[in-house]
């Protein structure tokens, strides 16, 4: 039972990272109409940024600002590229998928050549802290707690924005019916650029929480996470924000349980077998696609 509770907590904290990632990915899909496969790479570069910032300062606020700034900047920089691709006649959304895979590869290679000589980096203890709680087999690290609480706060703020503000209403309007959105006078391009900005902020938060949770970063982390993010989005139903929320948390829990009871190395196999099963049985995803 203790193992179960311990793994449940660790699963929820990992899951909240997946939720943040898949939420950003889905927002890009719905509003900017692109498949942003490079998003997790942006997150990893933002993690590296935090690591560098930690060498210079121990002011946590400054480090967080640095991480978010880099993530927002990279997200916004990719916007003109995707807009150009989408504007080409007879090109569909799959072209943006290929392009973002290319961008992801470039980012990964830059990281493996130039960041810390290509070696993975470990975050110092002053960043993640130790355990908050430990009795018996149950230990909760500070990083886990931060990831969980931070994830809940970030997602809540995002959904508040989506459902209670005008900008959020614009997002949903464009996602649902682009023509009708245009007809009520919503500035499509401006709103789309704003979605890159929001996704950048979400990415920065993911990077900070992720680095606290796992305490390290490597050039290969992004691709690894990108596949999971894509899997969650497909299993939930592409573009389904609520579905992504549930499935992101579920994947975290399933992986953690697998680590606890079987073996850590099987957790990926389980995740992707589930994805394959869902694609075969329910191609539109468990909660239905929204694009």
């Amino acid at each position, binding site marked *: 039972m203790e193992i179960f509770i311990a793994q449940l907590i660790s699963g929820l904290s990992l899951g909240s990272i997946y939720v943040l990632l898949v939420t950003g990915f889905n927002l890009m899909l719905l509003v900017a109409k692109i498949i942003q496969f490079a998003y997790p790479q942006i997150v990893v570069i933002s993690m590296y940024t935090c690591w560098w910032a930690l060498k210079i300062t121990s002011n946590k606020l400054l480090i967080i600002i640095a991480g978010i700034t880099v993530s927002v900047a990279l997200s916004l920089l990719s916007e003109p590229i995707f807009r150009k691709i989408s504007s080409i006649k007879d090109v569909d959304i799959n072209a943006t998928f290929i392009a973002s895979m290319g961008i992801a590869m470039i980012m990964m290679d830059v990281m493996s050549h130039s960041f810390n000589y290509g070696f993975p980096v470990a975050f110092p203890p002053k960043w993640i802290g130790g355990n908050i709680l430990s009795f018996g087999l149950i230990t909760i690290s500070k990083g886990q707690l931060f990831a969980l609480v931070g994830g809940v706060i970030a997602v809540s703020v995002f959904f508040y924005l989506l459902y209670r503000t*005008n900008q959020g*209403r*614009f997002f*949903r*309007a464009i996602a*649902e*019916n682009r*023509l*009708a*959105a*245009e*007809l*009520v*006078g*919503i*500035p*499509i391009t401006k709103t789309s650029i704003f979605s890159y900005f929001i996704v950048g902020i979400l990415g920065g938060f993911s990077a900070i929480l992720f680095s606290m949770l796992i305490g390290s970063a490597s050039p290969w982390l992004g691709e690894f996470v990108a596949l999971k993010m894509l899997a969650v989005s497909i299993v939930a139903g592409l573009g389904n924000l609520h579905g992504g929320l549930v499935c992101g948390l579920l994947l975290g829990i399933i992986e953690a349980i697998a680590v606890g009871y079987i073996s850590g190395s099987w957790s990926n196999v389980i995740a992707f077998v589930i994805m394959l099963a869902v694609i075969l049985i329910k191609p539109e995803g468990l909660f239905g696609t929204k694009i």
Partner: protein
Amino acid sequence: MEKKNSILKIENLSVSYGPIKALKNIDLYINEGEFVSLIGANGAGKTTLLKAVLGINTIERGNIFFLGKDITRKPTNVIVSSGLSLIPEGHIIFSSMSVLENLQLGAYQSLATFKENLEKIFEYFPILQKRSNQIAGTLSGGEQQMLSMGRALMSKPKLILVDEPSLGLAPKIVLDIFNILIELNKEGYTILLSEQNAKKALESSSRCYVMKTGEIAMSGPSLDLMNNPQIQQAYLGGC
């Protein structure tokens, strides 16, 4: 007669879909306070013309002036915020949002007068007030058309373009919708109505343009056109 400062003026407008010429040298004007209709068979280019005015179609040649300003090739959101609203064909609404949210989206450019506008809309369409918290997708076809109209009116437009409001609706509801359009016109709204139902369109409008294969075939006061034997034969089922 065209007045000196017409609200909408289209000069020599041409639009093509690839090799197909959808609109050929269209000239059209609307004076303030007028109720003008646009009739013609399916595929005559009525919807294409309305979409071109809104900046949705790519304009090949010609100019469009709205309130004296050139709006040719301007982005749609700029055209809409200058006071032009299209009520699209087939009641296009945000079906996963509530009725109220749909109206809020229509009003986002005039948030200051939101409450006032909303009350006005609920006066025209009492059913929308009753259903304001309902998800729009669950409304009936007629209610969705009313929501689409209400949403367009929320931005306090100076000119309303209405595309086929009777499409797919029961005769009773079509009657309601035309009555509301006439009412709106009496209250000062300028209206351009595109409609396949030529009889209804001619009855409610004061002036009419007849479109045929991308061209304006005829135009004039609706009464004259109604008595024109050619029109009677082609559009009103006369012989």
